[in-house]
């Protein structure tokens, strides 16, 4: 058993992931069904399309002190709603630059494509995000305001 004190001091980033219902959420379900083990950092919010997520909500989450936010949608061309993820992609480009401008490390926000068949990819994406954001350290943006 690890010493509880040590567990508490270790930085465990809290990451929010918006998953579209048709691809990414189903991919996350598949990761579960396949028992692909992954870090416990990520919490999923289901939306019908990745294009439902307004950039303000991502900024709000980071301003609230969450360490990372992901939007996960269908691969380009596979959107259940034909073109929703193209909007997401365009917004993400602008959002990254905006985050940089207002002083949040843009790496705290990530856009990834995960299909309903990519359980392994979902688990890899979660691991990658957890590693990256752990390396960045805690999100201090909220403190600075």
């Amino acid at each position: 058993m690890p010493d509880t004190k040590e567990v508490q001091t270790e930085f465990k980033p809290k990451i929010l992931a918006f998953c579209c219902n048709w691809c990414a959420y189903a991919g996350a379900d598949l990761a579960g069904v396949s028992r692909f083990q992954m870090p416990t950092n990520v919490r999923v919010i289901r939306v019908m399309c990745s294009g439902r997520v307004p950039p303000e909500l991502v900024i709000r989450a980071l301003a609230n002190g969450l360490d990372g936010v992901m939007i996960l949608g269908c691969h380009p061309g596979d959107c259940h709603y034909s073109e929703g993820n193209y909007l997401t992609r365009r917004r993400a480009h602008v959002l990254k630059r905006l985050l940089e401008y207002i002083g949040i490390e843009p790496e705290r926000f990530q856009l990834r494509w995960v299909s309903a068949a990519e359980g392994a990819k979902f688990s890899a994406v979660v691991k990658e995000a957890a590693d990256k954001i752990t390396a960045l350290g805690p999100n201090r943006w909220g403190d600075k305001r």
Partner: protein
Amino acid sequence: MVAPRIGVFVCHCGTNIAGIVNVPEVVEYARGLPYVVHAEANLYTCSEEGISSIKHAIKEYDLNRVVVASCTPRTHQPLFRNACADAGLNPYLFEFVNIREHCSWVHMRNHQEATEKAKELVKMGVAKARWLEAQEEFESGVYPAAMVIGGGVAGMSAALNLANQGFEVHLVEKEPKLGGRLLKLNRLFPINKDPSELVESVVKAVEGHSKIRLHMPAVVKAASGYIGNFDVSIDEDGQETSFKVGVIIVATGAQVLEPKLYGYGKLDNVLTQLGLEQRLKDGEVGEFQNVVMINCVGARIAERPYCSRLCCMTAIKNAALMKEINPKANVYVLHRDLMTYGVEFEEYYRKAKEAGVRFIRYTLSNPPKVVGRKRVKAVKVYDELMDMEVELPCDLLVLATPLIPNDDNAELSKILKVPIGDGGFFLEAHVKLRPVEFAMDGIYVAGSCRWPADIRESITQGYAAASEAVIPLRRGLVKVEAITATVDPKICKGCGICALVCPFDAIELKESKIRGLEGKIVSEVNAALCKGCGLCAAACPNRAIQQRGFTDMQLLSMVNALSGKR
């Protein structure tokens, strides 16, 4: 608004959840969350016992919101929503929390952190539930007619099936004749019959059917509307015609690739398999002494990675036929792999070998080479089994090329708002679970416009699409999940960005008829067209448009719950 009274039901799922997540701890935690008046654990919330427990608690504790923390909404949401409805609670006052697929199953070695995560997920679900609102599902009528696009064997099968069930069918074919690619074939594998028998009987049945209206030669020019209520206009022999249908079946087929390989189009004794069939049908093929066939020409390459499935069988069929015409002929089939799926097909292949057709395997990295300037004189191929190059004399070279998507697929895809996949074929809603439906409700797909299909498969898919399409036709009413967008006309400034991003043309700018706002230009959502993606809600600069079940407030409350803010 009545104060929220939330009930939380945490599922053990046997040991699936409870073996990892400390369920009693999660229940205890849920009890302390805002507006939660009842929390309990169930061995299986989805069991009859669990369901009756929910119904009982709704009455006992006067619950007006229900949160279930168990598996995934993708499979179990309808069950729990129905349980709420049975107990007199609007089914949209239900919220799902996934603590199995997204938690216990993926954190099996970390019970403590899994429990903490489950608690947070429940907290987020409860936070959203507080803002849930009762919703009414939109119902709309279904116009009892169908349009089938494509008069090939798939389209004709679908049209006949629908017409025989009593529904009016508009069959739209772009050629002046019914029958599609079948008209060009000489024989059918594996029965070696003349297809004209089949074509003639089906065409006769279609043409003579009182319920089928033929439009030939005609192409679809425009379509608008939604399941049950499509307005279609077609160009029929230069004339514009419009009609209304409830469902649409796409069965437009495919075309055969004309390759730029092996001297095709330059040397005069090179044909495609289809070209050979046409000549055989017209009786223009004499006796050949040396016939070479090459398979996978332009297929299973980087540019076109898929297997067209039918060409192997076609090559075997025609190779055996050439042997039948001249038993002394040397007939070679050069292939990369042979696709002879099914009992009959493998037997068909064996018979061709017995008849003396020779099969030689080549690889993509070392393809056959054509010898000759004006005509093919010989084909050189590296025979892997003999580990040497052989030169085969050749006076007829036949290339098996794949079926490729029709050139007008992209245009039709735009008109109907149905997707096409990477390769240019139409893309069904789900590769395994919904093989003949499009994601767009009320539109179905059959035959080779989806993927190369042989005649039997085309007929089967035509029937399958028809039987799916008949469901809304027969019911006469369709229900739409109440996750559609709504506009607050007081806040809406009429900028039209929502209409611009809507992939389904479900939003229009109109003059408001609401009292006090008369004449104001505002967005209006057509609930029957709206698919509930929420793109408009994310794009609205004024937050005037909201997606039901995924409002800004609901999403924000989840974010705040996770980050510990109120």
